């Protein structure tokens, strides 16, 4: 899984951090999403999918293809 974020679209809700705190964080100054782990381990995939689904700004894109790395 490859996680991509669009910081310009992010509305700073922080829902992604609540859903997957090991993968997402927020900049304190404006709440914009920070990606901690672009290739999260399999056990976090469900949480990352939840984060992408609840993002109110559609700022998280997931490439679900199996990791090539």
């Amino acid at each position, binding site marked *: 899984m490859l996680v991509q974020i669009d910081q310009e679209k992010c509305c700073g809700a922080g829902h992604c951090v609540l859903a997957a705190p090991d993968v997402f964080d927020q900049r304190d*100054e404006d709440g914009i999403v920070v990606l901690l782990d672009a290739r999260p381990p399999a056990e976090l995939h469900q949480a990352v999918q939840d984060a992408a689904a609840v993002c*109110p700004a559609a700022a998280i894109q997931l490439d679900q293809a199996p990791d090539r790395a």
Partner: protein
Amino acid sequence: MTALREVAVVGAGAAGLHAAEALRRAGYDGRLTLIGAEDEPPYDRPPLSKHLLDGQWQPDRLALRSPDALAELRLDLRLGVPAERLDRQARTVHLADGHQVRCQAVVLATGVRPRRLPGAEAPLPGAHVLRTLADALALREELRPGTRLLVAGGGLLGAEAAATAVGLGAEVVWLVSAAAPLAAVLGAETAALLTGLHREHGVRIHRGTAAAVVRRRGRAAGVRLADGSELAADAVLMAIGSEPATEWLAGSGVPLDAGGGVACDAHCAAGPGVWAAGDAASWPDPRTGRRRRLEQRTNATEQALHAARNLLAGPDGARQAYAPVPYLWTDQYGLRIQAFGSPGTADRFELVDGSPADHRFAAACLHRGRVTGAVGIACARALRQLRAQVAAHAPWPPADPVTRQTADHAPARLS
């Protein structure tokens, strides 16, 4: 559960899209029809009063999903076709183009429609509302340096449009009926900060109530107020609230609340096989028992996920009551204001970080000694930590400071 093979989602905005997506994610494999009155595939509305209106973003940036991601949902997508009637007995949605969509379950997500003023009930050059992409593009077309724009309505939409327009060089009059505009949404302290910024940037705040749009030579030429006075303008934006787009449900047997919203139960259901989410759906708040309807972007997503989950849960057992922690944000003059819960109804404002004067703060908003809201600017972490207390309506001050530190990292369900 009897095999579910036909589901229709009426409304192709954020709530409709998220409902459809959640159904697929949960494994629903049958026919899924998404019906939208507008021509565009699902797009995001918050930027309409911000980066779309100021021209920084073009319409394609608003798409909520890429064409590929939409295709993966295997939707029967009916765009540009309003739903006209719901026949609950026959389990059929009748569309304006004469087609009928059969469905065992339907999710109602038709959103709201802006209120208009007398004199501009029908489209009138120079008289604008701001709900759709087409609305925003039409308003953007009028905003030039020197354009006299009158924004009627003291809510967040009017405030954002006023801020954007003045940034484009327009001469903006913001007509508000409340003594402290935005206070009912954000609380008095944050509202005072924002109205101060509006004034600093040249927005003229005029207190009064719009009664009608004044027409001259086939165009809007200003607004007449309830006291009979007139304010002249080159263009008028009516940001005076919205009404649920539910008139097409008349006679369907779907219960509507006093405000015209779809009156759901605690599980987002509005009768057998009927579900609702988003701006048009009201539900009894489990904490207060009072009916609530939220016109907030985050609610559209969360309520849609919830409705989809309950729809698939079947008639007994696994349905969950909808108990969100509302979140809203607004961008004005380069500041992002964020809020959880209901800061507007608080009777006390307790700073936990920074100060409004520095445009950097997080505050707990208390009602009768409990945290019922939180609001802040540029203090995302401190604000997020308050969320758990808003969710719990926790007493203030927190009994255990350690709880405050760790609440942030506790496993969380969002709804």
